[in-house]
């Protein structure tokens, strides 16, 4: 096995071109190896000291989050909490405090777990990732086009996720991410749902809904979105959207829940996520993380 520490993106890209795999916080890669999911790669390049991959930059055009941005930074960033609240809901409940200070946004996305927390919020907020490769290659991919299957992305092995960008949301937008959990820390979503809604007066002008841990990848639920968009956001419309989100799910049975239980809970969790997103869009203060709010 070989190991190198990169201090610039160019160093990291050269190592990837030579067949190395990147490690940042290690909270998926190393934990996965410990659990016996997959052995550590033969060649590793540590990217945790690449300064240009760190930090959140806010601008009129939205938010740029470097690949190394930790979940702790995201969950406590005032702009994320104010305007991209579903993402704060998600990062605030990843793992434990220890996971959140070392685990990175780039790692969370590229690990591509169907149960990852940040995928649904980023997909519904129209986020993109920028991938770089050696020799000056750069491309930008919508988060909704990033996931190819459980643990697999559409990025090539020589590409490094360098940052995530999120455009500013429309006025009167509220968002939320809610998951079903059994434990308050070190939990993985049993099922999860994201809702991003925009209001024009009392009408829902736009609705985005994504489901988590309910399909081979995080995915939007178009039927749920059309059930909510154009409605008054009342109980009937919310219930219909939640039912549609559950109907769009294709869950598996595993050690954490049966397929039937996941399907039943998908509706409950989607209803909660939509409810909190609507409340936030109406200007009500619902604290982060929304998962801690019991209806």
């Amino acid at each position, binding site marked *: *096995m*070989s*190991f190198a*520490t990169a201090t610039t993106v160019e160093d990291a890209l050269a190592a990837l071109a030579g067949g190395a795999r990147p*490690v940042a916080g*290690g*909270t998926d890669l*190393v*934990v996965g*190896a*410990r*659990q016996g999911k997959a052995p*550590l790669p033969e060649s*590793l390049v*540590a990217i*945790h*000291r690449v300064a240009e991959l760190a930090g959140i930059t806010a601008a009129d055009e939205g938010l740029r989050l470097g690949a190394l941005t930790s979940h702790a930074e995201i969950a406590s960033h005032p702009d994320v909490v104010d305007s991209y609240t579903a993402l704060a809901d998600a990062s605030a409940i990843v*793992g*434990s*405090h*220890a*996971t959140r*200070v*070392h685990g990175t946004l780039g790692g969370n996305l590229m690990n591509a777990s169907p149960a990852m927390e940040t995928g649904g919020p980023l997909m519904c907020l129209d986020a993109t990732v920028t991938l770089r490769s050696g020799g000056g290659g750069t491309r930008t991919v919508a988060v909704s086009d990033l996931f190819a299957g459980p643990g697999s992305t559409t990025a090539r092995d020589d590409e490094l996720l360098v940052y995530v960008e999120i455009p500013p949301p429309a006025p009167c937008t509220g968002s939320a991410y809610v998951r079903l959990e059994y*434990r*308050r*820390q*070190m939990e993985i979503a049993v099922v999860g749902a994201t809702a991003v809604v925009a209001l024009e007066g009392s009408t829902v002008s736009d609705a985005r809904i994504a489901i988590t841990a309910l399909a081979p990848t995080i995915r939007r639920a178009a039927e749920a979105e059309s059930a909510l968009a154009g409605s008054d956001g009342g109980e009937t419309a919310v219930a219909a959207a939640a039912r549609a989100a559950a109907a769009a799910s294709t869950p598996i049975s595993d050690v954490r829940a049966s397929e039937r239980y996941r399907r039943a809970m998908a509706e409950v969790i989607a209803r909660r996520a939509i409810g909190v997103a609507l409340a936030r869009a109406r200007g009500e203060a619902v604290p982060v993380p929304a998962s801690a709010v019991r209806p």
Partner: protein
Amino acid sequence: MKVAATLRVNGIAYPVEVEPGTSLLAAVRDEVGLTGSKEGCDDSECGACMMLLDGRPVNSCSYLALQAEGSEVTTVEGLADGRDLSPLQTAFLEHGGVQCGFCTPGMLISATALLERNPSPSEDDVRIALSGNLCRCTGYDGIVKAVLAVAPAAPPT
């Protein structure tokens, strides 16, 4: 192939030689020789291996030792001042926060990190912060009381 590195643990620089896949926990226990941090689950579920990395808690069983080069590592051995226990350690003894002791190093590290970022936690804050640390003896009550005992009362919410 082993790689030579320097790990700074509790303020002292230790030269080590480790495989790239060696965990920080294994390096500190087997190479540095500080065995206070424990291996429980070995996959980040239980928190018995918790150390501070530049002041932030890390599950050292699942962190690569070579990634810690250039950072300051603090283990449970670094919390006391010589033979004088820290106020938190003393409170653990006074409030029955220790039985078998296996989770205690991780609990102390986790609670130290909590008090660093939130000097006046509520009981709920303490319980949530310690949820990544499992204890199979005490039922947690003594541990939570010990942490609250060294924290000035949180303002009522």
